[in-house]
């Protein structure tokens, strides 16, 4: 069992009991209408919000368990996030965005850059290295965000509405790319989406909020 969360997630007034587990290679989809707390689940797993109670663990490591005061900080969790609002660093080039996490985790600069180049090629952005996030299309930014998450080779991949922020034209391209990327991903994936078609195409299991 790679990722398991059994407890209460919450932010502000919102609170929700949850019991999920995601095995290696599995894609769990969390669905529900806007405001049902889907992003809160993602942020809790990523360590941006603490659990209200219960336990969150990945492999044999406990990430968050309020009862025992166990807390692994966000930067030390082996998970990567593709945020709903993408969140690329506008003051850095595309390649620096992708290499950022590797550099932060102590990978040498030339190795970080070459691994980032490889990932950019995999998402179809071969000659985009020196472009700026603000100079590329929404679909291309989404691809950079995917590359930025996958390059870290995380155990847990968190995708928050990975297809919602892009226009229809680049959407179709991503519809082919995303299943391909997920098929090649060894860890557990949690996917948040309000679109039944996306869930159908990507997920191996589904829960509704």
């Amino acid at each position, binding site marked *: 069992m790679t990722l398991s969360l059994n407890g209460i997630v919450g932010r502000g007034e919102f609170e929700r009991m949850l019991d999920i587990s995601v095995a290696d290679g599995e894609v769990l989809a969390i669905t529900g209408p806007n405001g049902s707390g889907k992003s809160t689940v993602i942020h809790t797993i990523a360590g*941006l919000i603490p659990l209200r109670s219960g336990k969150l663990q990945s492999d044999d490591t406990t990430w968050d368990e309020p009862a025992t005061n166990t807390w692994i900080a966000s*930067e*030390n969790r082996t*998970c990567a996030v593709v*945020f709903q609002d993408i*969140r690329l*660093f506008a003051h850095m080039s595309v390649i620096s965005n992708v290499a950022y996490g590797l550099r*932060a985790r102590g990978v040498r600069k030339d190795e970080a850059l070459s691994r980032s180049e490889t990932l950019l090629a995999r998402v179809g952005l071969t000659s985009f290295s020196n472009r700026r996030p603000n100079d590329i299309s929404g679909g291309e930014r989404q691809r950079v965000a995917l590359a930025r998450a996958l390059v870290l080779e995380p155990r847990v991949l968190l995708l928050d509405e990975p297809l919602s922020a892009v226009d229809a034209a680049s959407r179709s391209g991503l519809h082919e790319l995303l299943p391909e990327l997920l098929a090649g991903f060894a860890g557990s994936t949690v996917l948040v989406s309000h679109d039944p078609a996306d869930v159908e195409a990507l997920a191996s299991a589904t829960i509704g909020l």
Partner: protein
Amino acid sequence: MKQRTSPSLKVIAGIAAAFIALPLLSILVRTPWSDLGDMLSQKSTRQALTISLQTSVIAALISCLFGVPLAWLLARSRTRGLSALRVVCITPMVLPPVVGGIALLTAFGRQGLVGRFLYDWWDVSLPFTRTAVVMAQVFVAMPFLVLAVEASFRQSDKGLEEAARTMGASPSRVFFTIALPAARPAIIAGLALAWARSLGEFGASITFAGSFPGRTQTLPMAVYELVSVDYRLSLVLSLVLIFISVAVLAAMRDRWMVGR
């Protein structure tokens, strides 16, 4: 769409603008332009100008070095009592500068709270030195930088910092690679403000550092001392200060807009 302004408002606004512009223009009119070169090359003038530039640049840099982390703390820390700390830190902005000078003497003078030990243990006496000039300038100028930069940190996108953390960046790495670049326009604006304020500093410096020509006398002090002795020379030095101030404003005009 163009908005029409009422004529009476225009008149009042005109009076306000004239009240500010007229004294500045008067200096331009009364400046002895023919003797300008001679007066500027006088030793006392050059000394005061050099001390002013040197101390104000150092004060602005120190304000930046210490003020930016302080602004970050004020903007992001959730420690209790922080609002009280903020009030203390920006007090020099509204404090009469001469009171600031007295306060510095009380803390760092030979008999001062801290200064006593500096003097007893290491034979260090701060008042009436050029270091004292810089200290007085930092005291009055740093709050301007802190306020400008803190506002920028507050408005900056926390989502980007979160993203950086999920990618493995430590809090200090997030600060240096994400938060600091985002605040750059505000830091530059704050530096300019702090420098301009340091350059014009008078009350706190003359109280804490005195006005010794060639040692602690800055341009504003020289202007003040010359008014009754050599009015024409004080006009020339005033002109220099006006020129530098206007130049700072002109150079920073675009930065202000970014900062807003």
